[in-house]
Structure formats: C-alpha cells, structure tokens
C-alpha cells in the first residue's frame, strides 16, 4: 500500500484542457462565420455633379481640373479649365501605372487644394483597365510619401486624389 501511494505522488498531474477546448471551439465558429475566402475591397468613386462657377469669380491660382482620358490602351492626362494635354502614356508600357502615379504626385504637390480627378473612359474600355487607372490615381506607390502645404499646414496625404469621378458617356 505504501509503495502504491509513492507512485501516485510521483505521477505528474495532467492539465485540464477542457475549458480551453471549449473556448477554442467557440472561437473557431465565430471565425468561420466571419471568414471571407475571396477578399473583397472597395474603391471609392463619386457620381458627377454639375455646378456653375460665377463668371466674375477670380482664382488666386488656376485650378488643376485634372482629367484623365482613357482610350484603348492609351492614357491622356489633361489639366486646366481649358484642357491642355500634360502627358500621354500607354497601358502596355512597362511601369506605365507607376509612372502615372509619380507624375500625378508631382501635379498634386503643385496644386495642394485640388483633390479631384475626373476619369473619362472610352465606350469600349474594359472595366479592369478603369480599375487599374483609378488605383493609380489614388494610391501612393510604395516607398513614396506625399505631403502638401494646405493653408500653411503640412499634411501627409493617404491618397494622391481622394475624389475620383467617372465621367458619364455622352
């Protein structure tokens, strides 16, 4: 009898894992219901609004009025109230979207108050190309930062142009 007791004492106690198992099971169900196997995200665009500017209004600086025309594989970037072609790019070119973002960053730095870009795709442009251009217009490429001087205050921007408007077809 004495021998048996000493053995029992030597035997290590097993951990009671039942409560942690219960918690893990509940956690798994919660995660299973909230899991998304196709990761979906959103790109924000706005419906165009027509507004009139009084003819006597004078600007301190001419507004950027950025317009990006997208035809089959070609991107034309226009600026100014009276549209002036700034540069053109081809979607097939290597790093064309990266170049577009970099050039738009330069334009944004010169026009810190203008946060709007109009994208005008042609009738036959595939939706996937429109998404690529919207992303290039909004997303600051990795490794770059964009800070602008707004009303005497330096601000770090999260997007190159936040307000993207898709121009309706005529």
């Amino acid at each position, binding site marked *: 009898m004495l021998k048996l007791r000493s053995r029992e004492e030597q035997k290590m106690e097993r951990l009671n894992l039942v409560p942690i198992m219960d918690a893990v099971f509940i956690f798994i169900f919660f995660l299973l219901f909230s899991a998304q196997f196709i990761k979906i995200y959103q790109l924000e665009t706005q419906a165009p609004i027509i507004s009139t500017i009084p003819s006597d209004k004078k600007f301190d600086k001419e507004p950027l009025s950025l317009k990006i025309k997208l035809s089959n594989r070609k991107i034309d970037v226009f600026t100014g109230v009276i549209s002036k072609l700034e540069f053109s790019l081809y979607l097939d070119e290597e790093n064309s979207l990266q170049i577009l973002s970099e050039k738009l960053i330069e334009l944004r730095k010169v026009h810190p108050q203008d946060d709007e870009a109009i994208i005008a795709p042609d009738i036959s442009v595939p939706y*996937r190309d429109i998404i690529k251009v919207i992303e290039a217009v909004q997303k600051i490429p990795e490794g770059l930062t964009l800070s602008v001087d707004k009303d005497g205050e330096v601000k770090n921007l999260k997007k190159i142009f936040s307000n993207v408007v898709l121009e309706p077809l005529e």
Partner: protein
Amino acid sequence: MMNFRRKRKSNTKVEDIDITSLLDILVILLVFLLKNFTDSDLTVDMAKELALPYATQRGIAQQGVVVQVSSSSLVYYNNQLIGPLSSDSNITQLKSLLNNHKAELDLKLEAAKKSEPKLINLVFDQSLTYETVNQVLSIAADSGFGMYKLIVQGDE
C-alpha cells in the same frame, strides 16, 4: 466482498483520451481562420460568370445595397436576379428597386437627423466595357446614389 469492490473500481476507470493531435489541428485551423478574418460587414453572394478585377488598395467594403452585373450583362439586385441589362423592363425594375431603397434610406436618415451621401456597392465583371458600366452608374445616379463603391478583389 471488499476485494471484489476494489477490483470493480479499477476496471471501470476511464482511460484519458489523448487529445494532443486534436489540439494541433485546432491550432492550425485557428491560424488559418484568423488569416481570413475580415472586419468588413458586407457579404456578397457572387453571381455566376462574374470575375472581379484585382486591386492592391485595401478599402474595407461597407454595408449597403449591392448591384452586380455578370459578364453576360445579367443584373442582380441584392443577390437576386433581375435579368439582362439589355431589356428595358429590367432597367425599369432596377430603377424602381433603387428608388424604393433610397426612399427607405431617406426616412432613416431623416429620423436620425443626418445627411450623408447614399452609397451603392457595384460589382462588375472585369471584362465588361465602360458602356455597360456607365449604364448602371447612370441608373444609380438617377436614383439618388451619389457614392459608388466599386467592389474589387484583393491582389495577393
């Protein structure tokens, strides 16, 4: 008798089940599910023949009315099939559904004394042309939805 009792007790003692392997599986499952966890409150039952375009931006999708257009131009409103976009009756039906939804939203916002742009989640197949996309955008704008949320797939 005493001896018999003692023997019976030792015979009925339940052996501990080794749950180590089960725990291993659960931990792996937990890590996998945690990786797929998203705090987005939008759920979309993807229509057939609909391939989302890819994007690297990570804007969390928000709850709202969902309009889907498949590669064969079939329109879905909140996961319910309406029909081909080429048919005028389907366009009219989509317009009336959006108008009703907008009226409900207006009532809710009025009760809460808030004013904010109405958002619409748009799910288009990546191969659709801007002609089709523009048609849906125009319907949404005419119904009073001023904020388009274009749903894309995360680029891994």
